[in-house]
């Protein structure tokens, strides 16, 4: 009996239809899947074609990149279509960075920036032991160090020559400005408002009536007024209430205002996270015999804060942009310093370039914050995320 061997060789599978594979397939699936979508795609392409080339021309192709005098932009305007005058930004960029900080002392600001970077680098190294503790310390240490470097420590009377030459002479806060001021305010605001916000959120959920009432009152009061009002109150009204001769540094007032304002918002964000933690977690912590602080610090807050990372970063980005409001109390933050440059008699008429530069800068900063928060979310993901 012979067994017929039947060989069974699978035929190679046919390639997918041309229209569903490769670039064409992708286009078809994503951009031209129906008549309506095709119409939208074409309309969008048309719009982009109308909008992008002029922007490209203005920002890059027709822009003036070399030179250092207004005339070079003015002449270029006559010969070309009139692109951006980026040499204006370059001429004033030092002012954008440091505001009114004395020119011969700007290295102190640079030094503060370098120190901040150096202290922050280990926070991002995974192998670093006690990274969280170190990170917290760095966040608190950096603004203190930076302020010290900004401020200096030899307070000379104005009539000695050192008051205008000494490398470590005091520079009062009114002269701080530009990007360095924006970063300092944002740093202090972010570093100080999160702990305050957490305490407020816990206080608001407290069963002790006075604590909870105080926290509710504080949060509602600060959420109920616009930040611009807070700034204005702190700079214009407060001095009238203080006794004659008692001064209270304007920057400090602004910092306190920004911090408390942002803390009130963060408190509500954190409270949202606390409410998302199932009751069982609290009870389990109690069952283990953990005290209130321990159960919060070890069980509840780590989970709650992780859930609300997007909300917290949202608040931080808001705070970062809100720092521009210090302009109304006569301080020159980054945007204020740009506005200052726009009024430079040598560079009148290039305000658009200044503002575009500022917008790009703010975008880069806020976007990197949001990317970092996404990375953090991915790292801490334990299944809550969809």
């Amino acid at each position, binding site marked *: 009996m012979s067994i017929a061997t039947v060989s069974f060789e699978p035929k190679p599978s046919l390639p997918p239809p041309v229209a569903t594979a490769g670039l064409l397939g992708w286009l078809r699936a994503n951009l031209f899947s129906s008549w309506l979508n095709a119409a939208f795609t074409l309309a969008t392409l048309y719009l982009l074609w109308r909008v992008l080339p002029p922007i490209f021309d203005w920002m890059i192709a027709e822009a003036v990149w070399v030179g250092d005098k207004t005339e070079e932009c003015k002449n270029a305007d006559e010969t070309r279509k009139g692109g951006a005058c980026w040499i204006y930004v370059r001429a004033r960029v030092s002012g954008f960075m440091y505001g009114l900080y004395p020119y011969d002392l700007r290295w102190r600001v640079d030094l503060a920036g370098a120190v901040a970077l150096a202290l922050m680098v280990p926070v991002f190294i995974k192998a670093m032991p006690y990274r969280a503790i170190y990170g917290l310390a760095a966040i608190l240490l950096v603004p203190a160090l930076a302020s010290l470097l900004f401020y200096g420590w030899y307070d000379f009377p*104005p*009539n000695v020559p050192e008051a205008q030459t000494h490398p470590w002479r005091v520079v009062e806060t009114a002269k701080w400005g530009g990007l360095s001021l924006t970063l300092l305010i944002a740093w202090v605001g972010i570093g100080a408002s999160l702990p305050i916000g957490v305490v407020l959120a816990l206080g608001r959920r407290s069963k002790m009536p006075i604590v909870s009432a105080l926290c509710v009152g504080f949060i509602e009061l600060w959420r109920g007024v616009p930040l611009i009002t807070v700034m204005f109150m702190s700079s*214009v009204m407060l001095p*009238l209430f203080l006794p004659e001769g008692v001064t209270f540094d304007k920057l400090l007032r602004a910092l306190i205002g920004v911090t408390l304002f942002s803390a009130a918002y963060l408190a509500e964000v954190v409270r949202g996270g606390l409410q998302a933690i199932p009751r069982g977690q609290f009870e389990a912590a109690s069952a283990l015999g953990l005290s209130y602080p321990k159960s919060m610090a070890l069980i509840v807050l780590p989970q709650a804060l992780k859930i609300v990372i997007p909300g917290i970063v949202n608040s931080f980005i808001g705070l970062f942009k809100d720092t521009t409001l210090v302009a109304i*109390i*006569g301080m020159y933050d980054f945007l204020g310093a740009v506005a200052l440059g726009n*009024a430079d*008699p040598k560079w009148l*008429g290039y305000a658009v370039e200044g503002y575009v530069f500022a917008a790009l800068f703010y975008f880069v900063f806020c976007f990197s914050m949001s990317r970092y928060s996404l990375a953090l979310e991915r790292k801490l993901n334990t299944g809550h995320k969809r």
Partner: protein
Amino acid sequence: MKHLSLVAAGAALAMFSMAGTVEAQQTLAQVKQRGLIQCGVSQSLPGFANPDAQGNWAGFDVDMCKAIAAAVFGDVKRVKYVPTTARERFTVLQAGDADLLARNTTWTMSRDTQLGFDFVGINFYDGQGFMVRKDLNVKSAKQLAGAAVCTQTGTTTELNVADFFRTNKMAYKVVAFEKNDEVLAAYDSGRCDVFTTDRSGLAADRTKLKDPNAHIILPDVISKEPLGPLVRHGDNNWGDVIRWAFFAMVNAEELGITQANVDQMANSPNPEIKRLLGKEGDFGKMLGLDNNWAHNIIKMVGNYGESYERNVGPKTPIGLERGVNALWTAGGLQYAPPVR
């Protein structure tokens, strides 16, 4: 209880008012003790007060601050510039965060009386004017009937335009924006026929246009905007220092004393020059200053005309002719009482 609180309130009030009178005459002493003049300036106004990229302040109003520092200390660096917004400027001065405002502030009756300030002089006669396109062939603001006028919302500028057109029984249309740059952009893109603001701003704004030469500034001035430095009401000594620092600059121009020639002029036989430069009489002492107060001002800052030409004159981007700000001897309004 009620009476008690009344008494307490009365006592508090009395203490405050006493503190007020003691305080009032002390600004010069305070300034000398502090070693710095706190000068309230504009946050940034091209030609009047503006820091460069290195953070050094310059401008016509800034020169006023420097002149006072030169008079009091003989050192123009002894100024702490206090940038103020239009809104907070008066509180800053009132609260003592500034010793004076040199901040393009219009001298009005209510500010001089009710707000409790003293304007010590007029260092710049400003007034609202109009800019139009040359091809409209308009020679006077009276020909603007039916025009669309670009202006800033919520300013006296807007009210002045309304008054002007109503007085002359002309119809007009307002195109108003919040910010001056928006107003200018609207004018440049042809959304209105006329751009109006103070004449000190018009010339500077004209340079920002796409084709500045296609526009002219009409000769009409429709409002009075006398700008000058001001101090707190009641401190006359300090007010005198500011007033005479300004008058010294005007007198110096009239007498032909400049930054360059002030040292030679000090030896001039002209008694007026001798008195101004402290070679004769004790005029500095009368102000509570050194007798070379005016010499220092002119040496370190220059005379009125020099400051004008350097900051806002026709050779600067601001490009303002002297006009009514010329000396009275040249047909303008700048006139300083004599030093004697």
